[in-house]
């Protein structure tokens, strides 16, 4: 709950980091490169699947946050995540990363995966 509240508060701030129209021009393909180059994979996995040991189990594939809130959190995170300033990760690259995460395929339901449905 606290996580969501923080993002709502920061949403207004976030608009200043993402120029209007940036999201439209974002490229999921470029985003994959930026995602790897900037080390997002280290804690969130290459597919944004998250991990209980490195990202508190939070899943960012499919980006459950709106773009503004996502940007705000990356710039000024409230948890264990280190901040990525625009000097490290330019707005355009961040927009591409968002597009990459949005483009991740939705997972199958676990009941449709035999190795999981039986456990």
């Amino acid at each position, binding site marked *: 709950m606290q996580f969501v509240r923080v993002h709502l508060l920061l949403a207004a701030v976030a608009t200043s980091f993402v120029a209007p129209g940036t999201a439209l021009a974002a490229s999921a393909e470029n985003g994959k490169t930026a995602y790897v180059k900037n080390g997002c*994979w280290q804690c969130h996995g290459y597919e944004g699947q998250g991990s*209980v040991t490195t990202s508190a189990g939070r899943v960012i*594939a499919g980006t459950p946050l709106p773009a503004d809130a996502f940007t705000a959190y990356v710039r000024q995170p409230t948890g264990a995540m280190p901040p990525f*300033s625009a000097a*490290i990760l330019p707005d355009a690259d961040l927009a591409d990363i968002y597009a990459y995460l949005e483009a991740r395929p939705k997972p199958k339901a676990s009941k449709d*995966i035999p190795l999981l449905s039986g456990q």
Partner: protein
Amino acid sequence: MAKKDRSPKLDRRRFLTAAAVAGATGAVGSGKAGAANAGTTEAPARLPSALPPNAHVAAAEAGVPDIPPYASEGRPGSDFMVDVIKTLNIKYLPANPASSYRAIHESLINYGKNSMPEFLTCTHEECGVGIAHGYAKITNKPLMTLCHGTVGLMHATMNVYNAFCDRMPVIVLAGNDLDAAHRPPGVPTVHSAQDINAIVRDYTKWDDTPVSAQHFAQSFVRAYQIATTPPYAPVVLSLDDGLATEPVRDFGQKLYIPKFVPTAPPAGEAGAVREAARLLVNAERPVIVADRAVNTQRGMNFLVQLAELLQAPMVRERGRLNFPTTHYLGRPASVIAQADVVLGLELTDYWATVNKFVDNNAEGVGTITSTIKPGIKLISIGTLQLMTKANYQEFQRFQSVDVPIAGDVEATLPALIEAVKYALTDDRKNAIAQRGEAIRKDHEKGRDATRQAAAIAWDASPISTARLCAEIYAQIKDLDWSLVPSSGDVAGWPLRLWPMDKPYHWTGTSGGYGVGWGCPASVGGALANRDEGRFSVAIQSDGDLMYAPGALWTAARHKIPLLSVMHNNRGYHQEVMHVQRLSNFRNRVANLGNDLGPVGTSIMNPDIEYHKLAQSMGWWAKGPITDPAELGPAIKEAVAVVKSGQPALVNVWTQPR
């Protein structure tokens, strides 16, 4: 002048029989390890804190055994030492050979016929200790290892520290040549020390420097007794080369081997236990947190009984399995935030159980927040206060506790269960039953969420850690399996996905988090399981394997079947994240060089072909597996190899965690 022996006679054969009986029952302790293999589900009876000796033990206690006249035969001191060692029923001796203990080496394999203990050739002292540690985690019994003088004991140190932090018994003998006037000059002198035990004294429970054969006998049996009395821990004896090599001398007193009798473990004080029970019974939201609490099936059964009596959520820390993963009372640590009473069982870090530290600023100070409600009552049962050392800081931050109870958890649980039963009124029983129903529903929701989380990135390459673990389990689920002590951090997926209800299904982490423990510890665990006809599987990380890969050879050499599935994320991943973190805090772009992680943290360019490394040391091996569709068939093939008695390794490229 020799003292006259006035003690009753007991012939050697009868003495050794009695000692063997004592060892068999007690190496594990009346309250703890003695029931290691009992597997009973019966309700435990009340147990006194100290059990009376049985008839064999009582008879043996009355006498001193006759010992062959070593001196008159001119037999070496090391033969007598082997006789001493054999009374303790130590099955294996994993060690790297060395000149500083050549005398006892010769006695062990010739006079002792390389049996009880059997020498297992190791390629590094760290492997010897790690194998002993892994063995102890499965059996609760110590092995002994030998180290070569100063340099060998230095090699062993990191895994001695791991065993100390993990409260597991290992008996270390350090070869040394104390007599400066007689020891050979040159290398043997360089490898000798005035006080060799000082190298590990800060993280062993006890040490001694025997200077006579009789002194060795007393100290070896004492060392065994101390190591196997909770809290378990490593012990070290220096082994003087002169004493071992020269003919044994009795100085006019008949040599004898003290009989080992296991010590009853310390149990919590009765009044404090009653107060703990009162608080737990009257709590609205009690939570039990267990860490290094349970080593045996008996202890796990006690813990289930206590949790069910209270219908209390049970949080599992990573020291031991403690509690079945299948039980509905098993809950995540987040339940602690709502607790009004927390019972901490052998917690390595009580402070971190009720506080949260976030490493989130450039100065490294981080943010600390309490995770508990005001007015909460904290109870602890554990042995932290019973074995303290000042230098190394494994005791963690200090946490004030309302009812701190010093005692072994397994030895204290029977009394706590009885006290809880006594304190339960009908009103409380009704309230507790309602609480249990709510927890059961939460548990089911949690299981569903876990399975769905595992489905994310199911078909990804590199392979997700969830898929890795699901594929392994699919191939071993119909076997009597054991996930042996190993190093791979796979986000706890085995504990989240695999049904585990036996202590050997998972035995916890290394204790000291020293890298280089996983591979030898997995071999030690597999060694213990081999003797039980049990299938062993390890999840082996890449960085850990390269510290002490020689343990692979020991497994092949001594025909120890083990399936090692690699969690190969091609980096020192913890450090990958740390350097990225500091780069961000300092507002700098992390320098990756040509790798995926910051310079100095990746293990790539070139990639290490671990499967070929294993093959070179006599393992069946396959890899690298990068396509998740190929993983199941590869593991299936490897399982068949392991079932035939050989070790097998599957090298898998994985997601980071």
